[in-house]
């Protein structure tokens, strides 16, 4: 069983925590997320043009790049994390251009060497899978795809085909960090997705509070929080780890009190 698979066998929904690599003391921030109980780490690869992201994560990208973060730095952060936390799944999330700049095989090799479990590439839809997917699969790295409110039943099989690790349900048509969809709408969408795939379904975009996380955890296999954590990195800088751990602890505690989705 892979690290990603085993995380979703826990009795509660997984808490998936996102921060941007190179935004502050990333090693300390990641350790705080793990200490707070995060089940999966999503490490954002900074990009100059994060067009699916709202103001919070845009700003984190710019802070990171402004501090001189390189692709080599991102892999160094990942590799060191893997040494410190051999069992916590680590997923890289970002945009196509930095991932394919040196060729998809180069990227997959580097990710594999750094102990990365999965990759979410925002702007490579199934139609362009050849740009990165085959290279990741060859190295045993899960290409994690996104499903959205605009992904209808006719299109869903194409999204699922070649998808691995978990399915990331983007709960709102929009950018990261904006308002959340109604819980009922999320529940309905998750039920449909779970009927169509055996992959765990994690829900993200617009999840900001423990209450929201708990409501989602009642139906989904995972809850993704990004902007709310990234804002703490921006606000508190080097002092962010304590704040990150605090929020993560609250989120995880709320999630654990929610019953896990039936049938998974």
């Amino acid at each position, binding site marked *: 069983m892979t690290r990603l698979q085993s995380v979703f066998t826990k009795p509660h929904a997984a808490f998936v925590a996102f921060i941007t690599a190179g935004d502050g003391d990333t090693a300390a921030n990641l350790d705080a997320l793990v200490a707070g109980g995060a089940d999966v780490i999503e490490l954002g690869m900074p990009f100059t043009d994060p*067009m699916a992201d709202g103001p919070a994560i845009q700003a984190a990208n*710019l802070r990171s790049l402004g501090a001189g973060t390189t692709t080599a730095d991102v892999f160094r952060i990942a590799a060191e994390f893997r040494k410190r936390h051999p069992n916590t799944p680590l997923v890289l999330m970002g945009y196509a*251009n930095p991932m394919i*700049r040196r060729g998809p095989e180069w990227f997959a090799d580097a990710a594999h060497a750094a102990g990365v479990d999965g990759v979410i590439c925002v702007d490579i839809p199934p139609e362009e899978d050849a740009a990165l997917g085959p290279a990741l699969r060859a190295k045993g790295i899960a290409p994690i795809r996104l499903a959205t409110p*605009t992904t209808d039943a006719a299109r869903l099989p194409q999204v699922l085909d070649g998808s691995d690790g978990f399915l990331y349900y983007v709960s709102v048509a929009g950018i990261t960090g*904006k308002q959340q969809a109604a819980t009922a709408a999320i529940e309905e969408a998750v039920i449909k997705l779970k009927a169509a795939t055996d992959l765990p379904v994690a829900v993200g975009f617009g999840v900001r509070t423990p209450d929201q996380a708990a409501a989602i955890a009642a139906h989904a296999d995972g809850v993704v929080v990004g902007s709310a954590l990234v804002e703490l990195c921006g606000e508190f800088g080097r002092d962010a780890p304590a704040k990150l751990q605090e929020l993560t602890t609250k989120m995880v505690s709320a999630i654990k009190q929610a019953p896990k989705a039936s049938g998974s």
Partner: protein
Amino acid sequence: MNDTPPNSFKNQPDDHGHFGEFGGRYVAETLMPLILDLEREYRAAQADPAFAAQFDDLLEHYVGRPSPLYFAERLTEDLGGAQIWFKRDELNHTGAHKINNCIGQILLAIRMGKKRIIAETGAGQHGVATATVCARFGLPCVIYMGAEDVARQSPNVFRMKLLGAEVVPVTSGGATLKDAMNEGLRDWVANVHDTFYIIGTAAGPHPYPEMVRNFQSVIGTEARAQMLTRAGRLPDLLIACIGGGSNALGLFHPFLDDADVRMLGVEAAGHGLDGDEHAASLLGGAPGVLHGNKTYLLQDEDGQITEGHSISAGLDYPGIGPEHAWLKEIGRVEYTAVTDEEALEGFQLLCRTEGIIPALEPSHAIAAVAKRAKDMRKDEIILMNLCGRGDKDIFTVAEKLGVEI
């Protein structure tokens, strides 16, 4: 589609929107169903004679097409080589070729029942053209424009506002055209059901590069027929400036299978290709993925996008339409670059010799014409797309020439 002869240069893109290895649909999943829907609706419009009839009617009576084909006699004498002819797209309503595409896309938006139009703009020409067609058809219009460009191009900002558009200054990133495009995509992804995004150049996710090229091909289709009527033969060399590349593709595409017609695309070399201050994606960039397509980009070794520089805000974009990337790779079109200084000389040359004040964008093409014409025979013909007029640029030019107005 099936009657395109094999080995044609005009049968791109393929069914997936790829021009060779370039183009494609590199967008977030939220947008993917919309892009597919747009493609379906565009194919239906292409097959509908009523759509073409409405497009042609508006181009004739609203835009003022066909634009003239003009023999630049004094410029030809001055350069002392090949005959110089201009396709006069600067005489269009709103002063540039941009309107051709906007007419096509707004008709498609209306056909699709969309209630709201968004667009990005750099220099403001595409923003003005979009605001114009929105006023003409009574649709609300939001234009994203980098805050830097809002400051540099205040006359165009005022024009857009007069036309009823809301101009949103974009402060993210470098606050220029690419950031405006990011913000346009962010708006679109959040307003998927009622909003149509009018992209201004032959770039972005499929079907935009093909669609914009087809709407702009009216330039080359007219010019080809006009040339045969006036000169009795096809030109030897086509020249056009390139930012995203829509005016160049509009001119080149109808000639691509005319084997004896050579083509030259002119990028902006800014302060020179040896430094970082240029906007020449093909000559100074490398392939990558941005804004929905794979193409040549200005970027660093990690794939971070770098800012383009040009005296012309309309050429100041770190990417280029994917069809140009393909035409470069297969060698059908030659590409060169012209510096800010050379473009300024081209600008003044045309003012003096022909009584035409060109935009700074085609001034790059004029500079390339001046270089090439001298080495060509007097019975040879250069056809250049004079894609925009220079009223908008007089402040920039005055500043560069050290004149206070």
